[in-house]
Protein backbone atom coordinates (compact mmCIF):
# COMPACT_ATOMS: atom_id res chain seq x y z
CA UNK A 1 0.00 0.00 0.00
CA UNK A 2 1.33 3.43 -0.94
CA UNK A 3 2.17 5.58 2.04
CA UNK A 4 0.06 8.67 2.43
CA UNK A 5 1.78 11.93 1.58
CA UNK A 6 0.61 15.47 2.14
CA UNK A 7 2.43 18.04 0.02
CA UNK A 8 2.08 21.58 1.33
CA UNK A 9 3.28 24.58 -0.66
CA UNK A 10 3.71 27.31 1.95
CA UNK A 11 4.65 30.30 -0.18
CA UNK A 12 6.33 32.56 0.67
CA UNK A 13 4.13 35.51 -0.33
CA UNK A 14 5.14 37.25 -3.55
CA UNK A 15 7.14 34.38 -4.99
CA UNK A 16 4.90 33.21 -7.81
CA UNK A 17 2.41 31.39 -5.58
CA UNK A 18 -0.61 32.62 -7.56
CA UNK A 19 0.94 31.34 -10.78
CA UNK A 20 1.65 27.89 -9.34
CA UNK A 21 -1.77 27.64 -7.74
CA UNK A 22 -3.63 28.65 -10.88
CA UNK A 23 -1.71 26.15 -13.00
CA UNK A 24 -2.24 23.25 -10.59
CA UNK A 25 -5.93 24.10 -10.24
CA UNK A 26 -6.30 24.24 -14.02
CA UNK A 27 -4.43 20.96 -14.47
CA UNK A 28 -5.91 19.32 -11.38
CA UNK A 29 -7.76 16.66 -13.32
CA UNK A 30 -4.60 15.67 -15.21
CA UNK A 31 -2.70 15.62 -11.93
CA UNK A 32 -5.05 12.91 -10.71
CA UNK A 33 -3.58 10.63 -13.39
CA UNK A 34 -0.36 10.77 -11.39
CA UNK A 35 -2.22 9.77 -8.24
CA UNK A 36 -2.12 13.28 -6.82
CA UNK A 37 -5.19 15.26 -5.77
CA UNK A 38 -5.24 19.05 -5.78
CA UNK A 39 -8.53 19.29 -3.88
CA UNK A 40 -11.14 21.98 -4.24
CA UNK A 41 -13.30 23.66 -1.61
CA UNK A 42 -17.05 24.01 -1.31
CA UNK A 43 -19.00 25.20 1.72
CA UNK A 44 -15.75 25.30 3.71
CA UNK A 45 -15.15 21.62 3.07
CA UNK A 46 -12.73 19.85 0.77
CA UNK A 47 -14.09 18.33 -2.40
CA UNK A 48 -12.48 16.13 -5.04
CA UNK A 49 -12.93 18.68 -7.85
CA UNK A 50 -10.13 21.27 -8.10
CA UNK A 51 -12.13 24.49 -8.19
CA UNK A 52 -10.03 27.02 -6.24
CA UNK A 53 -6.45 28.24 -6.55
CA UNK A 54 -5.56 28.66 -2.87
CA UNK A 55 -6.80 25.35 -1.56
CA UNK A 56 -4.75 25.45 1.64
CA UNK A 57 -6.72 28.25 3.14
CA UNK A 58 -9.02 25.97 5.13
CA UNK A 59 -5.92 24.94 7.05
CA UNK A 60 -4.66 28.50 7.37
CA UNK A 61 -8.09 29.66 8.46
CA UNK A 62 -7.98 27.47 11.58
CA UNK A 63 -5.00 29.43 12.84
CA UNK A 64 -5.84 32.87 11.50
CA UNK A 65 -9.01 33.02 13.53
CA UNK A 66 -7.30 32.62 16.91
CA UNK A 67 -4.40 33.82 19.02
CA UNK A 68 -1.11 31.90 19.10
CA UNK A 69 -1.87 30.91 22.69
CA UNK A 70 -4.93 29.09 21.41
CA UNK A 71 -3.17 27.17 18.61
CA UNK A 72 -2.84 23.94 20.58
CA UNK A 73 -6.59 23.95 21.20
CA UNK A 74 -7.07 23.77 17.44
CA UNK A 75 -5.26 20.46 16.99
CA UNK A 76 -8.56 18.55 16.81
CA UNK A 77 -9.73 20.73 13.94
CA UNK A 78 -6.48 20.10 12.09
CA UNK A 79 -6.95 16.35 12.62
CA UNK A 80 -10.45 16.49 11.13
CA UNK A 81 -9.30 18.54 8.18
CA UNK A 82 -6.34 16.30 7.39
CA UNK A 83 -8.56 13.20 7.63
CA UNK A 84 -11.05 14.79 5.26
CA UNK A 85 -8.27 15.44 2.74
CA UNK A 86 -7.53 11.73 2.58
CA UNK A 87 -11.17 10.67 2.29
CA UNK A 88 -11.23 10.79 -1.52
CA UNK A 89 -9.20 7.66 -2.23
CA UNK A 90 -5.95 9.46 -3.11
CA UNK A 91 -2.79 8.77 -1.15
CA UNK A 92 -1.07 11.93 -2.33
CA UNK A 93 -2.68 15.27 -1.58
CA UNK A 94 -1.32 18.65 -2.62
CA UNK A 95 -2.47 21.88 -1.00
CA UNK A 96 -1.12 25.42 -1.21
CA UNK A 97 -1.41 28.64 0.74
CA UNK A 98 1.44 31.15 0.92
CA UNK A 99 0.20 32.57 4.22
CA UNK A 100 1.31 29.38 5.99
CA UNK A 101 4.93 30.53 5.80
CA UNK A 102 4.30 33.74 7.72
CA UNK A 103 2.15 32.29 10.49
CA UNK A 104 3.88 31.59 13.80
CA UNK A 105 5.68 28.29 13.21
CA UNK A 106 3.76 26.61 16.03
CA UNK A 107 1.06 26.16 13.37
CA UNK A 108 3.53 24.20 11.24
CA UNK A 109 4.57 22.13 14.27
CA UNK A 110 0.95 21.22 14.93
CA UNK A 111 0.42 20.20 11.30
CA UNK A 112 3.53 18.00 11.51
CA UNK A 113 2.33 16.40 14.75
CA UNK A 114 -1.11 15.68 13.35
CA UNK A 115 0.33 14.13 10.20
CA UNK A 116 2.71 11.98 12.25
CA UNK A 117 -0.19 10.75 14.38
CA UNK A 118 -2.21 9.94 11.25
CA UNK A 119 0.70 8.07 9.66
CA UNK A 120 1.05 10.67 6.92
CA UNK A 121 4.37 11.89 5.53
CA UNK A 122 4.22 15.65 5.16
CA UNK A 123 6.34 17.38 2.54
CA UNK A 124 6.74 21.15 2.76
CA UNK A 125 8.10 23.28 -0.03
CA UNK A 126 8.54 26.99 -0.47
CA UNK A 127 10.18 29.70 -2.52
CA UNK A 128 11.86 32.78 -1.12
CA UNK A 129 13.35 35.91 -2.56
CA UNK A 130 15.97 38.44 -1.55
CA UNK A 131 14.90 40.87 1.22
CA UNK A 132 15.46 43.94 -0.96
CA UNK A 133 12.98 42.51 -3.43
CA UNK A 134 10.67 40.83 -0.98
CA UNK A 135 9.91 43.93 1.09
CA UNK A 136 8.83 46.21 -1.78
CA UNK A 137 6.76 43.46 -3.30
CA UNK A 138 5.12 42.55 -0.01
CA UNK A 139 4.54 46.24 0.74
CA UNK A 140 2.77 46.85 -2.53
CA UNK A 141 0.56 43.84 -1.93
CA UNK A 142 -0.55 44.98 1.49
CA UNK A 143 -1.34 48.42 0.08
CA UNK A 144 -3.51 46.87 -2.54
CA UNK A 145 -5.23 44.26 -0.43
CA UNK A 146 -5.15 45.58 3.11
CA UNK A 147 -4.96 49.35 2.83
CA UNK A 148 -1.44 49.75 4.20
CA UNK A 149 -0.80 53.46 4.61
CA UNK A 150 2.88 53.50 5.50
CA UNK A 151 5.42 54.35 2.84
CA UNK A 152 7.85 51.71 1.66
CA UNK A 153 10.76 52.96 3.74
CA UNK A 154 8.84 53.11 6.99
CA UNK A 155 7.27 49.73 6.22
CA UNK A 156 10.66 48.16 5.50
CA UNK A 157 12.25 49.53 8.64
CA UNK A 158 9.47 48.69 11.03
CA UNK A 159 7.72 45.65 9.65
CA UNK A 160 9.39 42.38 10.46
CA UNK A 161 8.60 39.83 7.81
CA UNK A 162 9.09 36.47 9.43
CA UNK A 163 9.62 34.79 6.09
CA UNK A 164 13.22 33.62 6.11
CA UNK A 165 13.45 32.55 9.74
CA UNK A 166 10.13 30.74 9.42
CA UNK A 167 11.37 28.82 6.40
CA UNK A 168 14.54 27.87 8.24
CA UNK A 169 12.44 26.66 11.16
CA UNK A 170 10.27 24.64 8.81
CA UNK A 171 13.22 22.84 7.21
CA UNK A 172 15.06 22.33 10.49
CA UNK A 173 13.12 19.19 11.31
CA UNK A 174 13.21 15.62 10.15
CA UNK A 175 10.36 16.04 7.70
CA UNK A 176 10.97 16.32 3.99
CA UNK A 177 11.28 19.99 3.05
CA UNK A 178 12.46 21.82 -0.02
CA UNK A 179 13.41 25.46 -0.38
CA UNK A 180 13.90 27.21 -3.68
CA UNK A 181 15.30 30.62 -4.41
CA UNK A 182 12.72 32.61 -6.36
CA UNK A 183 15.50 34.40 -8.20
CA UNK A 184 16.84 31.04 -9.40
CA UNK A 185 13.50 29.71 -10.59
CA UNK A 186 11.97 32.97 -11.74
CA UNK A 187 11.37 31.50 -15.13
CA UNK A 188 7.94 29.96 -14.84
CA UNK A 189 9.06 26.73 -16.50
CA UNK A 190 11.77 26.25 -13.87
CA UNK A 191 9.25 27.00 -11.16
CA UNK A 192 6.86 24.35 -12.44
CA UNK A 193 9.74 21.90 -12.82
CA UNK A 194 10.80 22.42 -9.22
CA UNK A 195 7.23 21.88 -8.02
CA UNK A 196 6.90 18.71 -10.10
CA UNK A 197 10.20 17.52 -8.64
CA UNK A 198 8.79 17.87 -5.15
CA UNK A 199 5.64 16.01 -6.17
CA UNK A 200 7.72 13.25 -7.71
CA UNK A 201 6.24 13.70 -11.18
CA UNK A 202 8.97 12.95 -13.70
CA UNK A 203 7.18 14.07 -16.86
CA UNK A 204 6.58 17.77 -17.39
CA UNK A 205 4.05 17.11 -20.15
CA UNK A 206 1.45 17.87 -17.51
CA UNK A 207 2.01 21.51 -18.31
CA UNK A 208 1.93 21.36 -22.08
CA UNK A 209 0.07 24.41 -23.31
CA UNK A 210 0.50 26.45 -20.13
CA UNK A 211 1.19 30.08 -21.01
CA UNK A 212 4.63 30.50 -19.48
CA UNK A 213 4.79 34.15 -20.49
CA UNK A 214 1.63 35.34 -18.86
CA UNK A 215 2.00 38.06 -16.29
CA UNK A 216 0.45 37.24 -12.96
CA UNK A 217 -0.19 39.44 -9.98
CA UNK A 218 2.05 42.39 -10.82
CA UNK A 219 3.65 43.91 -7.78
CA UNK A 220 1.97 47.30 -7.75
CA UNK A 221 -1.26 48.20 -9.47
CA UNK A 222 -2.30 51.64 -10.66
CA UNK A 223 -5.02 51.44 -8.02
CA UNK A 224 -2.38 50.94 -5.34
CA UNK A 225 -0.33 53.84 -6.65
CA UNK A 226 -3.39 56.05 -6.57
CA UNK A 227 -4.13 55.02 -3.01
CA UNK A 228 -0.54 55.65 -2.03
CA UNK A 229 -0.55 59.16 -3.46
CA UNK A 230 -3.90 59.90 -1.84
CA UNK A 231 -2.60 59.07 1.62
CA UNK A 232 0.56 61.13 1.35
Amino acid at each position, binding site marked *: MTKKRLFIHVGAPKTGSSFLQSVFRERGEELKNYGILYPGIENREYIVTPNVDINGHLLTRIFRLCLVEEYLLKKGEVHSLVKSLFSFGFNKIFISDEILSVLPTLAIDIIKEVCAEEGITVVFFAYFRAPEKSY*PSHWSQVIRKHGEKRG*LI*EFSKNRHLAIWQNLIDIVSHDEICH*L*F*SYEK*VIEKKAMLK*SALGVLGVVSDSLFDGVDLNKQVNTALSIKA*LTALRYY*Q
Partner: protein
Amino acid sequence: MNDILTNSAVVDFSGKATLPNDIAEFVIEKHKNEYDLCMDISQKSKYLYNI
Protein backbone atom coordinates in the same frame (compact mmCIF):
# COMPACT_ATOMS: atom_id res chain seq x y z
CA MET B 1 10.39 55.37 -17.59
CA ASN B 2 7.47 56.85 -15.76
CA ASP B 3 8.93 56.79 -12.29
CA ILE B 4 7.31 58.60 -9.45
CA LEU B 5 8.73 59.21 -6.01
CA THR B 6 6.65 57.83 -3.20
CA ASN B 7 8.15 58.52 0.16
CA SER B 8 11.58 58.36 -1.53
CA ALA B 9 10.92 54.87 -2.83
CA VAL B 10 11.15 54.43 -6.56
CA VAL B 11 7.99 52.99 -8.06
CA ASP B 12 7.43 52.59 -11.76
CA PHE B 13 4.30 51.88 -13.70
CA SER B 14 5.54 48.54 -14.93
CA GLY B 15 4.50 47.25 -11.53
CA LYS B 16 7.82 47.12 -9.74
CA ALA B 17 8.95 48.89 -6.61
CA THR B 18 12.55 49.08 -5.49
CA LEU B 19 14.18 50.19 -2.29
CA PRO B 20 16.63 53.08 -2.31
CA ASN B 21 20.18 51.76 -1.84
CA ASP B 22 20.68 52.92 1.73
CA ILE B 23 17.43 51.34 2.88
CA ALA B 24 18.12 48.21 0.85
CA GLU B 25 21.44 47.84 2.68
CA PHE B 26 19.66 48.25 6.00
CA VAL B 27 17.10 45.60 5.10
CA ILE B 28 19.70 43.21 3.71
CA GLU B 29 21.87 43.55 6.82
CA LYS B 30 18.86 42.91 9.04
CA HIS B 31 18.03 39.62 7.34
CA LYS B 32 21.37 38.61 5.84
CA ASN B 33 22.03 35.57 8.01
CA GLU B 34 18.54 34.17 7.56
CA TYR B 35 18.62 34.76 3.83
CA ASP B 36 22.09 33.21 3.43
CA LEU B 37 20.97 30.12 5.30
CA CYS B 38 17.93 29.82 3.04
CA MET B 39 20.26 30.04 0.05
CA ASP B 40 22.45 27.26 1.46
CA ILE B 41 19.45 25.02 1.88
CA SER B 42 17.99 25.90 -1.50
CA GLN B 43 21.21 25.02 -3.29
CA LYS B 44 20.62 21.40 -2.32
CA SER B 45 17.13 21.52 -3.82
CA LYS B 46 18.52 23.18 -6.91
CA TYR B 47 21.04 20.42 -7.33
CA LEU B 48 18.45 17.75 -6.65
CA TYR B 49 16.12 18.92 -9.41
CA ASN B 50 18.78 20.22 -11.79
CA ILE B 51 17.04 23.53 -12.30
